[in-house]
Structures are given as structure tokens and as C-alpha cells.
């Protein structure tokens, strides 16, 4: 069957998923975060009765509405891809992946769409309190949909709560709560939604900064800036905290990803964290070369972050590939051998069942279960293949972390200068505020690269490599749909860009002109 392992199909399928996920993620962060900021503004209005705050809430709700209308449904394409390009993966994941996704669908469609309608069309039509509750329900509903998706994603990175049924080659859920409350998944959820909060805050900061630079809608812009900078500040601090949580769980469950994030080839006790560094191009596992041309390291920090112990051993790529007996790390070659035992035993089991050979089936099943944990390694040919692309992950990780910390400082500065009414004197900072929006998207895309490219070669960590996750379909079909999606989604993004810019240029409605609030 190896002749069917078509790398063009695998690569195009990966490319297509990356493309659609990238576009999807251009819309999602604003949906995740803006609703909370709109809800804050409207709460202030309901509590104080100040109509200015309702005007602020309405204006951002209009921009939110544009993003929501254009972005809604882009996730459907990802769902379609699971059924086609990744049908082996979908089959093997079974109800573990399907159940959270179905829950997401129900939540997104019923909870969100119902209350989104109240939020958009309910201004002045329903009681203020009910309207406000609806805005909060949209906000929490959006985060809840994200929870289910990220639980599914968390499971792929750290599979728990299931057993593999060799009769039908599916993972069956045995512990729903273990899947839902997987610490990896919960942390991933918090890290991802807060990144959406930060991006949304920057969206509001950027638009407000532009108004202030233009001298338009000054009070609306400044008040919005106060709320967005406050929410952005605490979100970005929380983002760093959950980022620490992510690093901890990656160290526990995906040491190869951590080694790539840090460009760590030779493991060490009391490992330092590379603050800034340049990797040596062409460095290979076991070639004895220094991995870095230069680096500035914070001593022991990697051991502390990864293992909560300053002297803990952090395995490098070489330890993971070649094995390290002293640290109890099995070599990739041995894992591959065991994985093949598992796969052969699975084949033996199926044969024995077909022949009604009960004893043979039992024996094969025992061998399979003993080696099940290494099942995915059985598909690999090259032990080095367990390490993802080091430079790509290393630099993406640094871009994300550096920008993340810069954002905390920027929010702090913006907040201080806005509340002390000195913002207009610092025009350079307003420009920084505008450019921070694309930078925030860059940081979060870099984060997704670390998470998803960093988990290669796996779709399900240790159990299923990406190359076996694809379907038996023609690569040309995937190329065709790739082009189709690229065109379709580019049109949507261009529409968003144009409509959003027009709405921002028009600004909030003047009271005498009458409503144009979506």
C-alpha cells in the first residue's frame, strides 16, 4: 500500500488546511474578543445611563457585525476537509473528535446566532437588560464554541480518555471528562481565547488611534482606547501566564516540540532559555556542530518553565532521536521497532479474527496492546523524522514571545497616556498603535505555527502521523479545491477589508443622521 502513500496528496492537504485555517483565524479573534469590549461599554451605559457609552457600544457592534457576517461559516470548509482530505484521521479519531465538533456546531448555530440577532437588531426594541444579557451571551457563546474546537485540538496534541478498538480501527471515548478537562486542552483554550482578546483590543486601539490622529470622534476614540487598553493589558498578562502553561505541558507531553522551540539539540540539566539567538544553517542531528551561531541565554529558565525545577533535565533533539539511557529516554529507532510490532500485531489480529482463530487473535491483541503507545512510530522510516522543522519553530516561537511581551508594555503605555490625557501629544505612539494590529495577527499566526507545525510528524501525538492521516483520494482534487478556497477566501478577506475601512472612515453615526447600525 506504500505506493498509495502519495506525498503530493499529503503536502497539498496540509497546505490546504493551513490556508483555510489561516484565513479562518483572520476573522475569529475579533469575534472572540470584541463582544466583551462591546458588552463592557454597554454595561457602563446601562449602569450610568450615559448615552455616549451606548453610542460607543453601537459603533463597535457595527464593526463586529461586519467581521461576523463575512467570517461566519469559514470554519465549515475545515469541517469538509476532515471528511475528505483527512478521512483516515477522522475515522481513527472517531467520536472523540466528532463529539466536541458537533457540540460546537450546536452552540455556534443556536446560542450564538439567536443572540447575535438580538444584539444587532435589539437596540431600543427589547429591554436594555435583556439586550445586555444577549451581548454577554454572544461573547461567552463564542468562547464556548472555541472551547470545543480547542478540546479537540488539545486531544490531538495529548490524547487521553479513549481506547483503541482494533476491530474497527477507531478510538472510542471512555472518559468524556478526561477529554474535556485535559490540562493540555484547557490551557490551550485559555491561551487561544486570550490571544483573541489581545487582537481585538488592538483592533479597537488601532481604529481609535487613527481617529485621534485625524482629530475625529475624539471622545469616542479615547473612551474606547481606555477600555480596550485595559482589557488588552490584563489579557496580555494572562496570555503570558497561559503561555507559560503551554510551555509546561509541551515539555511534559511533546518534548520534540520543545526541543525545536528552543533549538536544543543536546539535552542538559538546568537548561537555559534562549532569549535571542541565531541558528546555524545546515545543522543536523548528531553532527557535533554547535547549533547556534550566537545566542543570549537566561540560565536555568527552560528547566524551570518546562519542569518547575531549576536543575531538571531537558531532553534535546539528539536525546529524543538517539535515546539517552541515563535519563530513561528511548531511542526513536526502538520506538519505531515497537510501533511496527503494534501494526503487525494489528494485521495479525484482523487475520486471526477473519479465520476464527480465537487463540491467535488473543495473542496478537496482547502484543498490540503492549505496543499500542508506539503505534504511530511504526509508520515512520527515518528516526530523525520525529523532530519538526527546527528553524521554523524556533524563530516563530521567538516572534510570538517577543511581540507578546512588547504588547504588555504597549498596552500599559497606551493606558497611562490615555487616562492622563497625554495621548495626542505622542503621535508616534498612535502610529505604533495602528501598526500593532498586523503585528498582533503576526504573533498569533506564529503561535499557531509553533503549535501545529511543531507537532509534526503527528496529527495525533505518537499515534498517527500526518502522512497516514490523509484519504485515498486524488491529489489533483485537493489541488483544485486548494485553488478554489484560496480564491473564495481571498475575496472574503478583501470584502472585509474594504467594507471595514469604509465603515471606519464613515465613523459612528451622527445622531441627527439616523441609524445605520448593524
Amino acid at each position, binding site marked *: *500500500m*506504500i505506493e*498509495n*502513500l502519495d506525498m503530493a496528496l499529503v503536502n497539498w492537504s496540509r497546505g490546504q488546511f493551513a490556508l483555510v485555517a489561516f484565513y479562518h483565524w483572520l476573522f475569529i479573534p475579533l469575534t472572540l474578543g470584541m463582544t466583551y469590549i462591546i458588552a463592557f461599554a454597554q454595561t457602563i451605559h446601562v449602569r450610568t445611563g450615559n448615552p455616549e457609552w451606548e453610542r460607543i457600544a453601537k459603533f463597535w457592534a*457595527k464593526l463586529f*457585525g*461586519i467581521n461576523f*457576517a*463575512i467570517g*461566519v*461559516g469559514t470554519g*465549515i*470548509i475545515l469541517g*469538509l476537509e476532515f*471528511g*475528505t482530505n483527512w*478521512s*483516515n484521521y477522522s*475515522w481513527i479519531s472517531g467520536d472523540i473528535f466528532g463529539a466536541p465538533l458537533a457540540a460546537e456546531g450546536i452552540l455556534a448555530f443556536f446560542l450564538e446566532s439567536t443572540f447575535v*440577532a*438580538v444584539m*444587532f*437588531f*435589539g*437596540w*431600543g*426594541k*427589547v*429591554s436594555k437588560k435583556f439586550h445586555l444579557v444577549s451581548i454577554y451571551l454572544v461573547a461567552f457563546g463564542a468562547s464556548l464554541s472555541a472551547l470545543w474546537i480547542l478540546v479537540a485540538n488539545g486531544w490531538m496534541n495529548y490524547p487521553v480518555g479513549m481506547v483503541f478498538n482494533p*476491530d*474497527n*480501527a*477507531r478510538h472510542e471515548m471512555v472518559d468524556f471528562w478526561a477529554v474535556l478537562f485535559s490540562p493540555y486542552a484547557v490551557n490551550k483554550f485559555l491561551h487561544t481565547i486570550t490571544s483573541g482578546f489581545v487582537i481585538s483590543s488592538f483592533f479597537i486601539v488601532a481604529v481609535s488611534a487613527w481617529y485621534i490622529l485625524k482629530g475625529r470622534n475624539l471622545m469616542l476614540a479615547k473612551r474606547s482606547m481606555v477600555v480596550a487598553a485595559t482589557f488588552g493589558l490584563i489579557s496580555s498578562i494572562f496570555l503570558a501566564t497561559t503561555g507559560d502553561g503551554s510551555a509546561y505541558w509541551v515539555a511534559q507531553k511533546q518534548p520534540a516540540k520543545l526541543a525545536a522551540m528552543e533549538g536544543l539539540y543536546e539535552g542538559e540539566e538546568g537548561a537555559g532559555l534562549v532569549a535571542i539567538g541565531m541558528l546555524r544553517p545546515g545543522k543536523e542531528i548528531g553532527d557535533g556542530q554547535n547549533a547556534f551561531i550566537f545566542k543570549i541565554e537566561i540560565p536555568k529558565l527552560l528547566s524551570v518553565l518546562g519542569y518547575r525545577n531549576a536543575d531538571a533535565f531537558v531532553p534535546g533533539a539528539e536525546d529524543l532521536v538517539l535515546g539517552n539511557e541515563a535519563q530513561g529516554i528511548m531511542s526513536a529507532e526502538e520506538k519505531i521497532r515497537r*510501533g*511496527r510490532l503494534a*501494526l*503487525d500485531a*494489528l*494485521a495479525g489480529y*484482523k487475520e486471526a479474527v477473519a479465520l476464527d482463530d480465537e487463540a491467535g487473535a488473543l495473542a496478537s491483541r496482547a502484543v498490540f496492546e503492549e505496543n499500542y503507545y508506539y503505534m504511530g512510530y*511504526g*509508520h*515512520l*522510516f527515518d528516526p530523525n523524522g520525529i523532530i519538526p522543522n527546527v528553524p521554523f519553530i524556533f524563530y516563530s516561537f521567538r516572534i510570538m514571545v517577543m511581540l507578546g511581551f512588547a504588547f504588555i508594555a504597549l498596552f500599559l503605555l497606551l493606558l497611562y497616556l490615555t487616562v492622563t490625557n497625554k495621548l495626542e501629544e505622542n503621535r508616534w505612539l498612535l502610529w505604533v498603535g495602528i501598526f500593532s494590529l498586523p503585528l498582533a495577527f503576526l504573533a498569533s499566526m506564529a503561535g499557531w505555527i509553533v503549535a501545529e507545525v511543531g507537532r509534526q510528524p503527528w496529527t495525533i501525538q505518537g499515534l498517527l502521523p500526518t*502522512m*497516514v492521516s490523509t*484519504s*485515498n*483520494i486524488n491529489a489533483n*482534487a485537493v489541488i483544485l*479545491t486548494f485553488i478554489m478556497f484560496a480564491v*473564495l477566501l481571498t475575496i*472574503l478577506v478583501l*470584502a472585509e477589508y474594504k*467594507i471595514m475601512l469604509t*465603515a471606519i472612515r464613515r465613523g459612528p453615526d451622527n445622531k441627527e443622521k439616523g*441609524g*445605520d*447600525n*448593524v
Partner: protein
Amino acid sequence: MGKMLKGFLNSFVSIFVSGYQMFRRSRLARILLIIVVVKFLVFFGLLKGFLYPRFLEPHYESEQQQSEQVIRDFTTTHKPSEQ
């Protein structure tokens, strides 16, 4: 209880009326509505309803057949002898 239900229905109707008026009044709302409708027609009608099930999804007679195919993929990819 009856009063509450009436209030709820009134809100429901007024949201519909308000939505309708907004689409009549606001060009932006109409453009967004057209985008949503066209997009959902393409996503659900064209892609999910036609293109994918007819031409793109891999076809299996039954779940049994799919599971056999997956196990075949699973247990033979690692055998260099079949390369």
C-alpha cells in the same frame, strides 16, 4: 406567565421588524446580508451539498469497508517490501 410569554413574543416580533427595517434602510446591512446568503449558498449548496459528496469525498460502501480500508492503510504503509 402569560404576560411573560407575551412580552417575549413582542420582543421577538419587534426584533424581526427592526431587522427588516434595518435592511431596508441601511446599504451596509444589505451588502452584508447578500454576502452571508451567497456564502452559505456556496458553502452548503455547492460544496457540502453537491461537489463534496459527488466528486471529492472518498466513497465507501459501508462503515465496515471504510474500517477495513483504514486498517489496510495502517498496517501496510510501513512495509518497505511492498514499495
